[in-house]
Structures are given as C-alpha cells and as structure tokens.
C-alpha cells in the first residue's frame, strides 16, 4: 500500500524545515516522529490533556488536533525552542526554583501555555493564569507550584521591563 507524501514547509523553533508527510498526520506526529522533537508530549490524543501544547503562530494549540498540512507556512514553537541551547528562560527558571515539575511529563505543555499567556499579558492575575492553564492536566503537583512559578516569572519579567 503506497501512501502519498505531501511537501510541507514549517518554521519550527525559528528554523525553516521541509518535510514530506501524509495527509492525515497531525502536527504532534510530525514533531515527534518526523522531526524527532520529542519534548512535546501527549496523553489523550483528543485535545483534552494539553500535554502536546505548542505555539502555532504565537497561539497555544493542542498539536494532536492540528493536521500538519493545515499548519504549512506557520511558525511552530515547542518546548525545545523556549530558550537557547543549554540555558533557561525566566519562566523555566521559575519552574526550577518553585519545584513546579515532579515527573515533568506535563511540563512542556504547561510552559507553552504559560508562554502564550505571558506574551499577551506580562502581568496576569492569578485568575488569568488559571484560565491559561485550565487545559493542561498535571497529576503530580496539585498545580500549586506551577501557578506560583508563572506568577514569579511574570513578576520578574515585568520588573525587568519596567526597569
């Protein structure tokens, strides 16, 4: 059974990438299987758990629900692209300081959801943080430290911005 492969150009973490993919492949499958970007996780494959959250042109989406061909031409940011190789951005640093990851499996999706929020609103309220993270399941932490970490990152970033 031969399967037709279609060309697809994506910008992933700032780098233009050309892949040939099947029509039915999701962005999640392309990232993990074709591009070996395994930082993006998954659980439900039906848009509920948020583990596969990535930025698509700056908007947080469930990569399991996006057909990769429909994302052609878009900019995709995954957890691997949040900071320069070997470094941590302020949000990641806050996650480390607050011990906001235990098993760490939901963490990439959490970070991406929080990144989308902070890019829109650098000083969100607790309520806004909870709205931004409500689509991301975590079974380890009870969420307390995750919310704290996002608050801490926001405080630090807005302090830096306001000088």
């Amino acid at each position, binding site marked *: 059974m031969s399967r037709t492969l279609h060309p697809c150009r994506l910008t992933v973490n700032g780098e233009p990438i050309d892949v040939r993919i099947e029509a039915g492949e999701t962005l999640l499958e392309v990232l993990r299987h074709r591009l070996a970007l395994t930082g993006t996780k998954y659980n439900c494959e039906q848009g509920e758990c948020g*583990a596969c959250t990535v930025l698509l042109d700056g908007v947080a989406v469930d990569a399991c629900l996006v057909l990769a061909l429909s994302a052609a031409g878009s900019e995709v940011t995954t*957890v691997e692209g949040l900071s320069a190789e070997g470094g941590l951005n302020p949000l990641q640093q806050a996650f480390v300081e607050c*011990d906001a990851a235990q098993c760490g*499996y939901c963490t990439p999706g959490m970070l991406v959801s929080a990144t989308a929020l902070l890019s829109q609103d650098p000083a969100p309220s607790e309520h806004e943080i909870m709205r931004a993270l*409500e689509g991301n399941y*975590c079974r380890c932490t009870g969420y307390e430290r*995750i919310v704290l970490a996002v608050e801490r990152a926001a405080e630090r970033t807005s302090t830096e911005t306001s000088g």
Partner: protein
Amino acid sequence: MRTAQVAERVTGRTRFVDDLAVEGMLHGSFVRSPFPHARIAGVDISLALDHPAVRLVLTAADLARSAGIPRFGPLVTDQPVLADGKARYEGEPVALVVADSLSLAREAAARVVVDWEPLPAILTVEEAMAAAPLHDPDRRPAAQEPWRLGNVMGEWEFGWGSLGAAEKAAAHVVTETYSAPFAHHFAIETHGCICIPTDSGMRIISATQHPFILRRIMSQLLDLAPEDVVVEATPMGGSFGSKGYAKVEPAAAMAARRLGRPVKVVLSAEESFATAQREASVIHARTGFDSTGRIAFQDLAIDFLVGAYSDISPRVVAKSGLHALAAYHAPAARVRARGIFTTTPPTTAFRGFGSVHTAFAVEGQMERAARLLGHEPVALRLSNIRAKGARSAYDETPVDGDWQNLLRMAESHIREHPSPDADGVGVAFGVKTCIPATRSRARVRQRGDGSVVVEVGTSEIGQGTPALLATLAAEQLGVPVGRVHIVAGQTDSGSEDALTASSRSVVHMGNAVMAACRELVERRDAGSPDANGELVGDGEYTADADPDHPLGGPTPFYEAVATAVEIRVDRDTGLIDVLRTIHATDAGLVLDRDRAMGLDEGGLVMGLGLATSEALRHGDDGRLLNGSSLDYRIPTVWDRPSEMVSLFQENRDGPGPFGAKGLAEGGILAVAPALAAALREATGTDFAELPFSAERVWRAIHGQAR
C-alpha cells in the same frame, strides 16, 4: 541534584520511554476485547496479515505450551499474556499486531476479526457471589488454592481480644457501610516499553516502577536466567502504582523474541485505563464505645473488588485489612478482608495501597461516634489514638511518632483563622504502613577524576528520590553535586532493590547509600582504590522479617498524617469549593522541603479528585462509560484549594538517614474522611459513598434521596 533534574524537564530533554528509539525497532498495537466478559469462538487474523506493513500478529494460539497459555503476575501467575478462549475484562488483549509504525499497527489491529460470544458481566459483590467462577479452577496448580473459592480471590481474617464480651459491654455502637468506586491512576504518560532481544536473552526498556520485580517476572515467563534479562527503568511520566509489576512487557517481549527484532509497545490513554485501575471497596463497619468514649471494639468486613486477575491485590487486601485499625487502640477487634473478582481490568497498587478506603471507613466511624456521644470529633480521636511507643497485635512495630500532636497541628491551624465564607471544616487522621522485610543495596563509586557515580535501584517516578539520594551522597563524600552522576533503576548496575513503592526508598535505599558512602570514605582514608583506580563503596539495608507476622514482618515505619479542610458548598450546584487545606505529616526529618511539600500538595489534590469527581462508571451491559481522558474527570488547576499549607513534625525518630521517614503517599490518605466531615457540617448529611459528586451533594442539600 533536584534542580538539575527539573532543569532537564523544563527544557524537554528528559527521555521518557516513547521518546526512545532503537535500531530496527517495530511497533506493536493490541487487539482488545470490547466486552467485559466473553468467550472467544474464533480469531481471524488473515486480513491483518494481508496488510503490507505487518510483521507479526501474535495470538494465544502462537503462545500455547503444553501447560497452556503462559501467564504472569507478581504473586499468582494468573494473567494470560494474551486472552485464551475467554476475555475476562473489557480491554483484555487478544492479539498483538506488530508493524513498521504505530499508526500502521493500529490500522492493521482493526482488521483482526474476533468471533465473540458475550457472557454476563460481574461488577458487584452480589453479582460475583451469584456468578459462576470467572476462573477455571481445574487449570490452576495447587499453589493457587485461593481460586477454589469461586469468585473470592482470597480472604484474610485478623483479630484480637474477645469481641463477644466487648460487644456486650459496649455502651454505644456505630454502624455504617462505606463504599468507593473503581478509579484510574491517570498518569499523564501512558504505559510503554521497548523489548530488545539480545544474544543471551532480553533487554527491556520500560516505564516501570519495579525493574527488579519485572526482571523476575520476565525471566520466569521467558525461561531465562534472571541475569539474562536486563531491565532499564526510564523516568516515568507519573505512575502512582499503575506501572508496577508487568503490564505491557510480556506480550511485547514474546513478539520481540519471535521476530528477533526490537518491539516497542506504547499504549493510548484509553488503553492505560484498561491496563491498571484502583480497586473498588465496600466496607461494613461496626465500632463499639464505652460510656466515656473509649473504643470497646472494632469490627470491619472489607470487600475489595479487584478486577479479573490478581496482580498485587492479594497484598493490597491483606495489608490494608490488617492495618485498617493501626490508628486507634481497640481492646477487641475483628477484620475480615476479601478480594472479589470482577470483569474489570486488573486492579493494582494505587497511592495509599488500600489505606485510602479503610481510613474513609474508620475515620467516618469516629465522626459518627463523636456526634452520638456528644464529643468534639478531634477530642474523641485524641482520647483513642495510639500513643508513641504503643504496641498492637502481631508484634507490630510500636507507634513511632507523636500522632496526637499531628491532629492538634492540623486542627489548630484550620481553626486559627477561619474563612468568613466557610460552610464546613473537617479534620481526619490517616496512617499507612510501609512494606515489610525488603532489602536495598546501593553502590557509590568515586572515579580517578574525583567525580562520583551513585547507583540506586530506585526508579524515578516524579518523586525525586534518586536525585535526593545523590545529593545525600555528595554531602557525605564532600563532592559538589555537579560532579555526581546518578544511575537509577537499572538491573545491571551495582545496586539491587526490592521495589520503588510504599514510600520506602528514602529509608531503605537512603540507608544503603549512607552505608555505601561510609565504606567508600573508609577506603579513601586508607588510600585503597580498586584495580580501575576507583573507590567503591557498597551499602545495604534490610528491614526486619518475622515469619510469624501475617505480612512477613513488622512495618519499618508508619506514614502518619492529619488533614484538615475548610470548604464552601455551592447550594445551587452542589459543587464543593475547597478554601483551605492543612496537612500535617510525621516526617521524622524532611530531607528536601520543596519536594516534600509538592508531594503533599499533589497527593491532596489527587485525593480531592478521588473524593469529588473520579469514578469509573459502567453501563448496564458492564461496559465502561468513561474510560478516556475526556470523560474521566481528574482535577484541573481550578480544583486546587485556594490555600494549601503543609506542616511537618520532625522529631528525627524515623529509621532513615538522620531520622527520616517516607512521605510520598501521605497527602492522599485522609482527604476523603476530612472532606466528608466538612460536608456533614455544611449540609447536615453523612456521606458514606465516594465520590461526593456535585449531584450527590445537591441531592443531600435539597433532600432528594436517590
């Protein structure tokens, strides 16, 4: 070390099992029973074999030996590698289809045609007692005697004192039946493994809590010497008990061996629901009190519904049964604990190991008794709770902590600053014992360049123990943590471990690491490196065994907690808003405060989910109605309490390093009874059936019984 580990997680560099690939790897997908109970009249694999990407379709017919289908299990080898003649739960694997990719394997698995003849489902104690035995007794060797009891997996009875005399003398008796539904662990990472045939045997890379138990099970199953099976535990994306023993590995290994190629099997979320569940329970409790409020007797009849195969359930039933009465002194007691087979997926360990069920009953009895006797609920507990040093029956370990103080800590903090809009407050006590009579061995090596390798059999589940133990070793050896490497959960390392469970690792492996460091320092001081220029220290810790103890030995320590909750109930919807939780843990000594608090918070929120929304529900045909991430409701960020306070009692009285005790499960233990007590205050209704769903709470408020 812990911060380095979290840094790895926040950059997506941690490799979980499905992030790994090995040369020549194929992918497997199971064909599963759509029925909870059905005879298999035929399996037609021809259409699947026609699929060009398919390399193997493994069925029971391929595996049958003279003794029948190979079976596995940690205690009783009752679970067939693939269903043979009959499926006993919805989702039981019937075939494993191996293909070039997972999507192709799933596609081809849909082409396997099974001729099913449905049989009646068994979902309750009553149905199990009335039904024909789920298991065929003739096929079982004599060692598996429990199977002769129809659908009763096993029954354990414990007791002391004269129950008859105590019943006659009791001034008050409280009687209630408590129940809890089947539940799912819901680790965000699903189950998975890669089985790689080697010249001498099998290499298994698996998201497993217990690499050494998995090695034993797999070497028996594959007729290999234990050393010819190498298990490498990957970091797990959560487990909570769901990834212990053997789950997907048996079929994957059999397929890999047949093909002579590596086979990866990673499940979907729905398949994980069908692979590991938490037992359901029905507990009939009778507790007698004298006129002053002292417990005169306890009488518990506990039925655990355990699913279709035994897995670790005999241990869950016996252990939580015996220790159901660990908290309060009772001069006379009887506990009968049974495991009952049902046509649901095998239940296995779940954070708390049965104690969550028994604490709900025992603490519920104290609440009801306090009302009956006109006592304050915490005061009634304080007058009955066992004092430090108190001994119980069966030569059990004397109480090793100040449990009264835990209750006082939780109560005083919750009462100190009451929220103005609170409707109810509840306080409850929980205690869990640790697995007895197990051993841990650690190896610590200092290389010629001064760097250190810490080898622990402990696996990394998210609890952070390997990193904690490596930090401990760095301190003991005077080496910066940046120069310490961890080898965790590998059977071919210099470490050996019983299992990573039961909050045991800080005590057992912690003591082993401390002993290994002492040996290394002695050799360093003596200037005696080995032939490789390395200094090596080995350490071991073994908890006491006692052949006369019903569980094989006394508990190495108690994991004791007191939990207080303050709630507001929305009278229009029945939803519970948890305003504050105070959680006090008898920690002995906290070795990593941030992680200890995080584990408590996580356990509490998991406990709140189980107490308010989590329940696996079945239709009239016995099929699961909500076995998916969409339909099974775990807590989201909105469900976390507005304020969570973790308190630790640190008297350095534990058996671990510097007096530490284990604490990873404690958060969950007393949540349900504390919430039930708060709900009673808020609604005037006693809740004895879990979960306290919005619908049930609404019906209680509006006087509509169901």
